[in-house]
Each structure stands twice: as C-alpha cells, then as structure tokens.
C-alpha cells in the first residue's frame, strides 16, 4: 500500500524519458517540409543566406579596402586582368596589421580608440584571419571604381552590411510594435479597439517622409548629436532603424488586428479563458503564435520596403552618412555619375543588381512561405 505512490511516480518518470523521444510534428516543421519542396523559395533562401554570410564576414574576403581613395583610377572600368594582385597596403610581409591604416581604409576603429566596441574587435579579428589566409592578395576592381577611385566591389560588400541590417532591424522593430499593438487592439475590441485603430489612422494620414526628414534634420543638429553621443549612440543609422521601424508598424498592426478579430472567436481562446489565462497570456501565447504565418510573410515583405526606403532616403542624401556606405548610397552615386560625356554603367548596374536581387529573393521567399504556412493550401 505504501509502495503504490512510489511506483506510480517511478512509472511516470520512466515514461517521461520515453516521451522525450516522441517528437510531434509541429505546424512549423510541417511548413518547413512544404517550403523545402518549393524550389524558387529555397533558391531565394540560399541566396539570402549567402548574402548574409558574405556581409557578416566581409573583412575576411580578399577585397580591397572600401575607403581607399586612389585618384589615379577614378571611374576605372571593371577589370579582370589580373584577377588578383598583391597590393594590400595595410598589411606588411610578415602578416602584421597596421591599425592606423586599417582605421583609415576600413573605418574599423583601432583597439586603443575609446569608442572601439565589440564589433570593431570582431572586424579586426576577421582582418587578421584574412591576413593569415590570403596574405597581401586582394581582388582587382572586378566591378570598377567610383569617382574617387574606390573599389566598387568592396563597397558593395560593406554596403550590404548596412542595407541588410537596416532591413532586418527596422523590420523587427515594426514587427514587435505592430504585432503587440494590433493583437492587443483586436483582442480587447470595442471602444478600446476603435480608439487604438483611429490613432493608427491618424498616423497613416501623416506624410511620413516629412516626419523622417524632420527627425533626421533634428538628429543632425550638433547639440542633439552630442546628447546622443553621451548615450552611446554614435551613428545616425541606429536612430534610423528605430524611426523607420516605428513608422512601418502601421500596416502590420492592421493586418494582425484583423486576424485576431477572427481568431479570438475560436473555441481554444474561450478554453484558455476557462482555465484562467489572463489577457496577456492569451494574446501572446495563444493568439500570436497562431498568427506566425502571416507575421513572417508580412515581415519578408516589410524588409524589402524598408531597404528601398533607406535607398530612397540615401538618394535624398538623408540616409547613411558619408564614409559609411549602403546600396542606396552606391546607387545614388552611380546615377549622379552618369553624364552625357561618359556613362559609367557599372556604378549603377552593380548596386542596382545587388539591391534588386535581394529584394527579389525576399519576395520569392515570402511567396513560398505564404504557400507553405497557409494550412488551407495544404495537400493541394
């Protein structure tokens, strides 16, 4: 009799170990299986993955320094003969790295710079690794040079870093704000919902390009800059992520709200209330996970929009600040360099290709994800 509870506990402990072996197929895994069958989406995913890796480890590749100005080869056309040259200046024959040269040519702060952070250290490590692997070899100007004789290929890679991060961070910011706001509004319903959505309508009616221009002008003020600097925010681009993210959440909020309105009628929401879930729990643990499909799909459509917006702002000269570079800045410089006298096509075509192919890939991926995640298309 006294043994009974012990054996029961043991029995379940044993079963628990067995239960860990049984893994259910979650809807996410199911969707992944379907996505894998979609060739276009998988190619897009692979491409984005490659671009992401390429951008993340940019200092590792044998590219020229993006800020190395050489007036003797301004507007030089793409050249492949020879494909690689042993011309790196910031590294000596023993493989040691000149910190000051790196700082000037790459914009990576030296270790003794007080503003130097973990990202600079990461970049420096990659550069050292590159020196160890490739020595002084670097690629010739495969994509040509810009008006200051800087290598376009290198600038494309360094620009990818900023463009991708802008898209990702701003996309995520808009996701967090939009989903929380929309789900809360939709779930609470009634007057609260009306008020929250009218607020969104008001924000919608503001021509936000002016808001961004205003904000960026304010942020450019030396006093404001000094203030931000004391908070540890050095770069205008950091602010930019949040500004753009904080603007692009509006549509996401509407989309999510609409879905929540229909989803909250589902019985499992009522069941959750019956077992005593509070509102926050219902919204974030029951409703939002069921919206993941549209959220992810919408995110893959927001990221390209944000990247384009960044390019557009850079076109206006309001985006990324000078020695830094993004695809939008490059495309802008390219169009400015087109004159009646000579057409330096590479300055427009390559940045355009980089931006366009990434946006294409994101759209293909979003399309594939929508098909994979929509259970109504399942087994069709």
């Amino acid at each position, binding site marked *: 009799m006294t043994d009974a509870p012990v054996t029961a506990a043991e029995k379940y402990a044993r079963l628990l170990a067995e239960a860990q072996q*049984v893994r*259910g197929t*979650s809807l996410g895994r199911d969707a992944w299986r379907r996505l894998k069958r979609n060739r276009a989406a998988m190619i897009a995913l692979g491409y984005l993955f490659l671009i992401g890796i390429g951008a993340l480890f940019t200092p590792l590749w044998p590219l020229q320094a993006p800020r190395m100005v050489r007036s003797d080869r301004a507007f030089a056309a793409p050249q492949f003969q020879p494909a690689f040259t042993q011309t790196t200046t910031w590294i000596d024959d023993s493989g040691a790295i000149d910190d000051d040269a790196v700082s000037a040519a790459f914009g990576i702060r030296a270790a003794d710079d007080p503003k130097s952070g973990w990202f600079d250290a990461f970049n420096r490590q990659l550069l050292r690794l590159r020196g160890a692997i490739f020595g002084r070899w670097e690629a010739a100007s495969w994509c040509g040079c810009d008006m200051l004789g800087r290598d376009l290929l290198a600038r494309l890679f360094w620009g990818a870093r900023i463009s991708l991060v802008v898209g990702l961070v701003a996309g995520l910011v808009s996701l967090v704000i939009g989903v929380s706001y929309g789900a809360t509004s939709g779930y609470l319903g009634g007057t609260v919902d009306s008020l929250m959505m009218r607020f969104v309508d008001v924000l919608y009616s503001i021509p936000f390009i002016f808001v961004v221009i205003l904000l960026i002008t304010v942020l450019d003020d030396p006093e404001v800059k000094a203030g931000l600097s004391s908070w540890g925010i050095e770069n205008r681009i950091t602010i930019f992520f949040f500004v753009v993210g904080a603007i692009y959440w509006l549509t996401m909020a509407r989309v999510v709200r609409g879905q929540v309105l229909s989803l909250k009628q589902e*019985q499992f929401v*009522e069941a*959750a209330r*019956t*077992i*005593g879930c509070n509102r926050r729990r219902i919204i974030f643990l029951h409703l939002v996970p069921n919206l993941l499909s549209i959220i992810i799909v919408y995110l893959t459509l927001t990221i390209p929009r944000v990247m384009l917006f960044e390019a557009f702002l850079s076109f206006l000269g309001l985006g990324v600040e000078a020695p830094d570079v993004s695809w939008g800045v490059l495309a802008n410089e390219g169009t400015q360099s087109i004159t009646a006298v000579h057409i330096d096509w590479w300055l427009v075509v390559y940045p355009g290709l980089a931006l366009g192919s990434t946006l294409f890939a994101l759209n293909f991926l979003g399309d594939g994800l929508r098909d994979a995640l929509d259970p109504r298309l399942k087994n069709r």
Partner: protein
Amino acid sequence: MIKASDAPLLEVRDLKVHFPFRRGSLFRPEHGFIRAVDGVSFSLREGETLGLVGESGCGKSTTARAVLNLIPPTFGEVCLEGEPIAGLSDTAMLPHRQTMQMIFQDPFASLNPRMTVGRIVGEPLKIFRPGMDREGRAVEVMRLLDMVGLNPRFLNRYPHEFSGGQRQRIGIARALAVGPKLIFCDEPVSALDVSIQAQIVNLLEDLQTQLKLAYVFIAHDLSLVRHISDMVGVMYLGRIVEIAPADELYRNPRHPYTKALLSAVPVADPQIERTRQRIVLTGDVPSPDRVYPGCPFADRCPQVRDECRKSPPKLEGIAGTADVHQAACFFARD
C-alpha cells in the same frame, strides 16, 4: 445517494443574458435585445449530473458560458459553493475556475494547434500551481493523460496528430488538471462518431465516480442525456420549461414541448417505430428578440388555450412529486 452537504454546489437563480443589437438603416436604427437566456434557474449538488436539452439556439451553451463568466450575465445570481460569482472580473473569477471547468463541443477548435499536448494540459497547472517545476508538471500531465485513457508518451505531440475522440480526451484532461468539482460539458460528443461517443460518455461516467464530479451536461441527444443525468432540464427560447429527475421526465413528461421532443426520439424496434405516434410541431422557434406577453411556446403548442397568450406560466412543482418535477405550463397537471 450520499450527499456531501445540503448546500448546493452550484445555484443559478433567474439568470439572464441579453445581447444588445442594432438593426435597420444608419439613420433609423432600431435597438433591441436578443434574449439568449431569459431567466434560468437550477441548482446542482456535488456528484450530480444535470442534463440540459433543447433545440439549437435555445440558450443551453449561453447558459453555461454565462455561469462560467465567459459572457457577462445581464441579470441573475450564480452561487458557487455559496459564493456569488455572477459578473466577477477575470481576476476575481480566477480562484473559482479551479472549482468549475468546461469541456467544449468541437475537439478540433478547442485545442490550440500551436501547442503540444503537454503544454495544453499543463497550462492550467502553470496558472494554478506556480510552484510546480517543469518535471513535476510533466509527470502530472502524464498522470492526467493516463486517467483519460491516452498514451502518456504523447506529451510532445500536437493536437492535429490525434483523432477527434483523442482530442476530446485531451480537452477533458485539461479540464481535470485543476481538480474541479463541477464540469460543464457543452455537447461534448455531438462532433464525434457514434462509436466514439459511447467511449467518451463512459469515460465521463468513470471520472464522475472516481473524482466525485458534478456535471452540467448539454446535449441534443435525448437518450444520451437520460442515460447520464440525474436531473434533466428542457430549455425552450432561453427558459427552462420543464425540469425533473431523468426517469420521471421521460416516463411522465408534463410540458407539451417536452412531449413533442420525446415523441421525436426514434425507437430501436422497427415494429414499435412504425406505430409510434409523433407530435409534429408546426411553425418555427419564435425570434428571441421580442417580448411575449404569454407563454413563449403558445404559437406552436398543440394544447394552446386563451390564457396561454395572456400571461407567462411560471416553473411550478407538479403535485405529488415533492416539487422535484417542475413544469412551466398552466395545464401541466392535466
């Protein structure tokens, strides 16, 4: 029958749920109320089962939801173990949810498709027993799954990997997790195959004896309700028109609506079935958005008389039954 205490576990008095609506054009709106539940009273002791029957839209499910405070009741009193709970806020209602749970009609819609079975059944434990660690919860969930006849190894599976009957068992395990005394079963078997229905009903009965549960059992199926219930209430247009011990009600129905309902139950013997007299009601269920001066059933009643249209009949005890059999008809004694 052994009674735990004389005080009823659940007492519902004159419960009303009215939904306001607006119709007509934007400029000439008409305001009104849908009287989904219009004065329902019943009480239930520990370990008892009350069956609620009635046609679609008569307010059975709304009654259950209003008692559980999933829909705010418009009027009336609900006492759970002597404490008034009608219209409590979610926070104030929380401790009472441990006493009162619900099993839902549609086993495909009532489980969150993004959660594993372990999380679904473990969620009430997370809320009501916050001190419990992960492993303890997993073991408890497995015990519950075992109790409802599911393989405890399926802890990490998702609802879509189960059949309808199994899903309903998951729903039952979730309701049992908090250790309730009363479970509202909102047509728990009507979405299932007939063969599975019997299994689920047997499971519910076993659990009742094992855990001394009280049920409010909502169903369409009259023979099923007779089988499982101690008391049966017949609802029509948001009201209970007749309530009686199950056998008494089926043997001796007093309200004409109950009579009509029972006459519609098919008999398994084809000989009797052929000769069976059926009362076929004419007309439709009247709209619940109007107020009727008389008996709401008057328009369809085969025994209607003049006084039926003047004032509404009250639910009154039938003489000689010590008031356990009550009917809301002026001529229930005839």
